[in-house]
Structures are given as C-alpha cells and as structure tokens.
C-alpha cells in the first residue's frame, strides 16, 4: 500500500528542520546586518517598485505551501509517535488539517497585511493579497490515500467558496488592532 516508509519520513523531517533552521538564520542575520547596511529599506524599495510581481502569487504559496504545509507535516510527524492509537487516520487528521488551513489563512493573511502596511502600500493591496489567498484556499485540500495511510496536499474538484472566504477574515484582526492602536 502507500504507507510512507521510514526513510521518506526521515527525509521530510530532515528537510523541514534544515529549511526552518535556514529561515531562522536568515531572519537573525538580516536583522543584524540591517543595522549596519540598511537592508530593510533596500528590500522595501525593490518589492514596492515591483509589487505586482511579488505580492500576488508569492504570498499564498508561502502561506499555504510553506507555513500550512509545515504545520500539517509537523503535526503528522508528532502523531507518528502514537499512530497505533489512531484507528481512523482520515477522520482524525482531516478536521485538524482543515483547522490549520483556516488558521494559516487568517493568521498569515494578517501578517501579510502588516507586511503590506510596512511596505507603505495602500488598502487596495490588502484586497489583492487576500483575494489571491482566497483563490488558493478555495482549491486547497488535504489528500488521504487508502483511508489515511498516505497523506499530502491536493486540489478539490470544484472551487469551494466558503474556504475561499476565510482569508478575508484577516481584515478583522487587522482593523481591530489598528483601531485600538489609533485610538490609544
């Protein structure tokens, strides 16, 4: 059957750990070097100048491909520690993976709005980014092979409007926090 081998699990785990470590090192190095070489202003000017090239397709890929994928993979790997107790993997994992998808849609959507505001871009960009998230979220689905022995990302047969609307909820915390900030 399609149950993933331990080598595959180990490779995925190694890849994830290396990727996260590299990301952390990059963020720390960027912040440290930014004090001397003003890297943030350079990155801001480049991304702002070519905003349509960077802020339509990349944000949902990072949100649902990297963040949501890493969360789902990490949770799945943790659950391997007690997988003999999970009698129905599909029934166990499906709502959790859906929850991760919604959480990432709102949470990362909020972070992308903060990033857009930091870039100095105006509110129409919020709608562009969240609409792009919605397009991806409407098709994203977790895959369960042979009753959950193998899992991964896939696409739905049809566009799911309810899933696509979830990233728009990121506007709520954004304006809630900013309204409080402005009121203070």
């Amino acid at each position: 059957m399609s149950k993933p081998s331990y080598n595959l699990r180990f490779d995925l785990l190694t890849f994830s750990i290396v990727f996260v470590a590299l990301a952390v090192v990059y963020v720390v190095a960027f912040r440290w070097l930014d004090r001397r070489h003003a890297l943030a202003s350079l990155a801001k000017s480049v991304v702002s100048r070519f905003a349509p090239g960077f802020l339509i397709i990349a944000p949902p890929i990072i949100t649902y491909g990297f963040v949501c994928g890493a969360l789902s993979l990490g949770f799945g790997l943790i659950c391997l520690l007690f997988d003999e107790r999970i009698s129905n993997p599909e029934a166990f994992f499906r709502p959790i993976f859906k929850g991760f998808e919604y959480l990432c849609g709102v949470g990362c959507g909020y972070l992308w709005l903060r990033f857009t505001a930091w870039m100095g871009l105006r509110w129409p960009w919020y709608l562009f980014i969240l609409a792009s998230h919605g397009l991806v979220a409407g098709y994203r689905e977790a895959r369960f092979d042979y009753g959950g022995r193998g899992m991964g990302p896939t696409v739905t047969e049809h566009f799911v409007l309810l899933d696509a609307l979830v990233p728009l909820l990121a506007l709520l915390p954004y304006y809630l926090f900013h309204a409080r900030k402005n009121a203070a």
Partner: protein
Amino acid sequence: MRIVIIRLFMVYLPLTFVALLQVAALLTIYGGSIGGPNGTTIDLGTHVTGLRFGWPVLLVAATIYHVIARRTTAEKGEHP
C-alpha cells in the same frame, strides 16, 4: 565590495528565489500535475480554472492600480 555581496545574498538572491518559486507555481498551475487520492494524478492544466483565470486577472488589476497610483502619488513622495 562587501556591501554588494551582503546585499546580493540577503536581498537579491532571496527575492530571486521568490520569483523562481512563482514561476514554478505558474508552470504547475498551467501545465503540471499534483498527486490525487489513492495514487492517482490530477492534471492541473485543465483543473483549477479559478486559479488559471483568477491569478492573471489579479496580476493585471494590481499592475494597473500600481502604475496609476505610483504616477499620481509620485509628486507627494508617497507609496501607492
């Protein structure tokens, strides 16, 4: 020379990586495939219609808005 290398590795190469990531995503959406249930394969070139038409529409709309906004706000020194 040092600042050029730092900028290259900390700004331009990561942005190039993001750009290549987008190209890979577009190639997948328009002609690639993804794993389906029980070992099957789903051809995305004919499947995710909303993405295949939605992303270009968003790109064009965002580009038009960005160009117009940059022109109209350039005098004030603001961002679009």
